[in-house]
């Protein structure tokens, strides 16, 4: 077996160094190449897995032997699906996520750093690695907001950092508790999954609480979501794409892990589901009062995260529902932020009420936005539908009719998006004059994301088949 993960990490690191050394006119090319290589590698891994009938890529190198910590990776079906999603988002972000072409070197450096974090986190075999790569992700996201963001970026980035540091501390605390309470003192995820039942229930509850609140902040779930709107509104287009497309999915992945690892978590499933429902509906209601296009996307993707948490809390097939929804959410949120960023660049305006008739000058962008909105609310033939279908089926199975209450969220989000899009961007031309141009790479970006959204929405068994094996 080829060391795919180390290879991906290695060429991302090489790309990072090359970007540092070479002049800034090469940096975009390097970043795109690195992301493209990552996509190719994941597709190769997917291809091998489909041929072999099972997914299993493990690598392990000695790291801190005295504490039994290895530099280890384990890619199962879940990780592979998430890697595929992140590589697509990363590729589009580095290819077209910077319509302004501002500070290419810095932005490419940060994207490559974030790429390392995404590869490592989704394929980590132990919680130690998970935490390390999580922290790299936090640092690169912080810098992306702080250095590349818009006018109010200082406050937004510090806000983000405080929340994420707090989350990181809780996660670290939870991980340490697990380490000291497993019989063999191990960080290894597989080992923990098979031995977590031997941890006494009180400790388990404590671990659950620490990790849950930590991941809740990262997802984000009400009432820990307050960093999100500012961070999204102030980050650069690339920053928002990576933030909502991949970074928040780190925590969603963590939630999935948490619910798989700790047997005690099933005890709290009903509470978690209630919280998830509240969070989804809450963010949809807050959404109704937003007019900043990036905040609109931010709150609607937060509603999606609530539904993903609902999926995590219910069991079996919904776990794959949650996974599929994470996959979908990553692609969709990235598409929406890309389109929103391009609109902001073209018209120099981010208040949706002032974007009347945007479709006249920016047709493809507006239609991409509309398609993204459809996918976000779970329209059939998009990935969103499959995810929501599985999540809600299992939620109703687990919690009865209460499981369906969260359906209000897609209803409100859908109504609001349809209404605002039709009364602003799709109406007759107002005072919106285009002040900027976007390149063909933008269209390539839309095409790539839309292709994945529809391809896996129409043929979901390509991915779901992996889970079965």
């Amino acid at each position, binding site marked *: 077996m080829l060391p795919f993960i180390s290879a991906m990490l290695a060429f991302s690191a090489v790309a990072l160094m090359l970007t540092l050394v070479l002049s800034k006119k090469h940096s975009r090319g390097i970043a795109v190449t690195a992301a493209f290589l990552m996509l190719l590698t994941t597709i190769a891994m997917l291809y091998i897995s489909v041929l072999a009938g099972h997914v299993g890529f493990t690598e392990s190198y000695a790291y801190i032997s005295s504490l039994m910590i290895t530099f280890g990776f384990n890619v199962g079906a879940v990780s592979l699906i998430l890697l595929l999603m992140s590589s697509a988002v990363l590729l589009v972000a580095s290819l077209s996520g910077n319509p302004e072409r501002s500070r290419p070197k810095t932005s490419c450096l940060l994207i490559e750093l974030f790429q390392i974090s995404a590869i490592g986190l989704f394929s980590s075999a132990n919680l130690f690695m998970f935490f390390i790569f999580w922290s790299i992700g936090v640092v690169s996201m912080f810098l992306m907001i702080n250095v590349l963001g818009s006018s109010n970026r200082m406050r937004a980035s510090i806000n983000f950092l405080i929340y994420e540091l707090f989350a990181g501390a809780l996660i670290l605390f939870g991980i340490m508790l697990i380490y000291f309470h497993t019989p063999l003192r191990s960080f290894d995820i597989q080992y923990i999954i098979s031995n977590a039942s031997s941890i006494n229930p009180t400790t388990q509850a404590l671990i659950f609480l620490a990790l849950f609140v930590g991941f809740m902040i990262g997802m984000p779930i009400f009432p820990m979501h*307050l960093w999100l709107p500012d961070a999204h509104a102030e980050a650069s287009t690339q920053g928002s794409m990576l933030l909502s497309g991949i970074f928040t999915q780190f925590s969603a992945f963590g939630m999935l892990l948490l619910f798989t690892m700790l047997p005690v978590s099933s005890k709290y499933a009903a509470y978690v589901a209630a919280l998830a429902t509240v969070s989804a509906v809450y963010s949809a*209601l807050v959404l109704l009062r937003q007019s900043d296009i990036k905040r609109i996307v931010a709150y609607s993707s937060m509603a999606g995260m609530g539904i993903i948490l609902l999926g995590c809390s219910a069991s079996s*097939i919904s776990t794959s529902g949650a996974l599929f929804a994470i996959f979908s959410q990553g692609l969709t949120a990235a598409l929406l932020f890309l389109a929103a960023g391009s609109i902001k660049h073209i018209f120099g305006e981010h208040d949706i009420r002032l974007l009347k008739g945007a479709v006249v000058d920016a047709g493809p962008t507006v239609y991409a936005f509309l398609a993204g909105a459809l996918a976000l609310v779970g329209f059939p033939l998009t990935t969103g539908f499959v995810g929501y279908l599985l999540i809600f089926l299992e939620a109703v*199975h687990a919690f009865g009719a209460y499981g369906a209450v969260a359906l209000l969220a897609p209803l*409100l989000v859908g109504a609001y998006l*349809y209404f605002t899009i039709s009364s602003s961007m799709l109406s007759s031309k107002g005072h919106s004059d285009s002040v900027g141009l976007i390149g063909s790479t933008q269209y390539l970006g839309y095409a790539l994301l839309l292709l994945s959204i529809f391809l896996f929405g129409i043929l979901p068994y390509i991915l779901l088949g992996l889970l079965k094996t």
Partner: protein
Amino acid sequence: MLAILVITPLVVAALIAMLLHDRRAAGYVTLAASVLSLLLVLYLLVNNPGAQSVTWFSVSGFTFSIDTALLQLNTLMLLLVAVMAPIVLLYSIGFMSVPSERGRYYFEMCILAASMMLFSMSSNFITLLISWELLSLASYLLIGFWYRNERAQGAARKAIAAVLIGDLLIFASMLLVWNAYGSLSFATMLQQPANPEVAVALALVMIAALTKSAQFPFHEWLPDAMEGPMPSSAFILSSTIAKAGVFLLALMLPLFARYDLLGILVIVGSITALLAVSNALAENSIKRLLAYSTMENLGLMVIALGFNALLAAMLLFVAQTFYTALLFLCAGAIMRANDHEDDIYRLHGTPIRTPLFIAMIIGVVSVAGILPLAGFFAISSIGTAASFNMPVYLLLVLIGFVSSLCMFKWMFVPVRHGARSEIKGVYGALPKSITVPIYVLAALAVLSVLAYMYLPAFLGAPGIAVHGISLESAVLESMAAIAGLGAAYVLYMNSKPYNMKLHLRLYAVLYNGVLVNIFYQGVARAVMALSRAVCAFDRALYSFMRGMAGAVSRFGSMLRVMIDGREDVYVSVFVIAAIAAIVLFVVW
């Protein structure tokens, strides 16, 4: 085989989006595809492939499949869609003459056709849901087609609001059915024992179907749907979206009967039909009058279904498809000749004794329910089915009278004495692609009388179908229709026709769509108020968190101030702490 029906329009849509754009060919390719579909449907009529199931995806033992079946009802619906599509598309070629709109129009029509084909043959919830939502999307796009027009915008939003509620309800009912039976197929629902959860699910399906077929209180989108292009409105109201709701009700009729839900249908249908005719009396727009007449017809179908009279409902279902489309296309031709004026008091009707006028007469006589056209048989059958329920029966007679009055008003006012026919030439110059579909439809509207003879055998469902027309109901119904004709002749066929708009008080009572709109605005306002409250809470939470952060940093500053370099303070603190430590140690 069935898949081709769905895929062909989608392929054409993709072709238009990628290659053809606004070229003239877009229309011809779409038309060709629809003719192909029609041929295929005719072939399927002979060689019914039966139930088919294609596995879509499966997860840990659960399988989701796209199930299709061609039972009698499915075939009927499919046939109507397949027949209507080429006619409407041919008309579109003449009607959509602005090149820049062509590509988008045919693209959206293809989506509509594909989803309607899939919808007509769906036999499980997954298929139903997919096609249902695609239909919603198509209606949103087509109704808001002229997006530069504020009213089209509003209409599209209204349609999507009704439709989103329907989508949500179908989704929710699917969840309940899955939970109850672990299966999503309609057949299973019939076979399995009754289950209270399924009763709820069916109630939700029923409401969803009512939203689509524009029944009270979701009816307001239908007259507004006239803001879209005329041929698409004709397609939407005659054979696709508005009919989809009725079709779904018919499909689920045995289940509704089993769970005793039919009473709701009678009530809702009656209210809808009554509201429709009252609004039609007050309406002067050539398009919206037809829309209200369609709404009234949909209401009658729902009433018939509520009496479990499937056959009567389906008779009207078939008849309405043709005459509604016919009248819409005529209205389109008239509006085109009058430079898109749509007030019947201001436009000039077609010259009498032209084929177009004869086609109009066929349509109007059929809608009004006058022997010997299809409308008569359908409406009398519904009357017969309702004859044991006196209030509804009388209501039907009243509706029959008013509806006939309104339809003849629609025809008489434009051609009355005094409407100068100086634009005779314009009618003569209508392109063939506009006139031919009208003649074809007129022929079909006449031929649909045959449905009365062949439909019972075709549906072949003994026990459900209440067949036959009682003499009493036929006579009463005819009298009402003829009275309507007479009243219309007296009121409208003169040089100073009666105009309801000039009698404001009566107009206000009859034209009550406004009230429904106010109600919905109230609902929207309530949701927005809730949203405002939640938003205020969100901001409060935000400031609270900032306050907390501020408190932490103030605490830090407080500590910092204590370390200010004054040795006397340091020493006194040290001494106090030492004493305290000793005391503590001793006491311990």
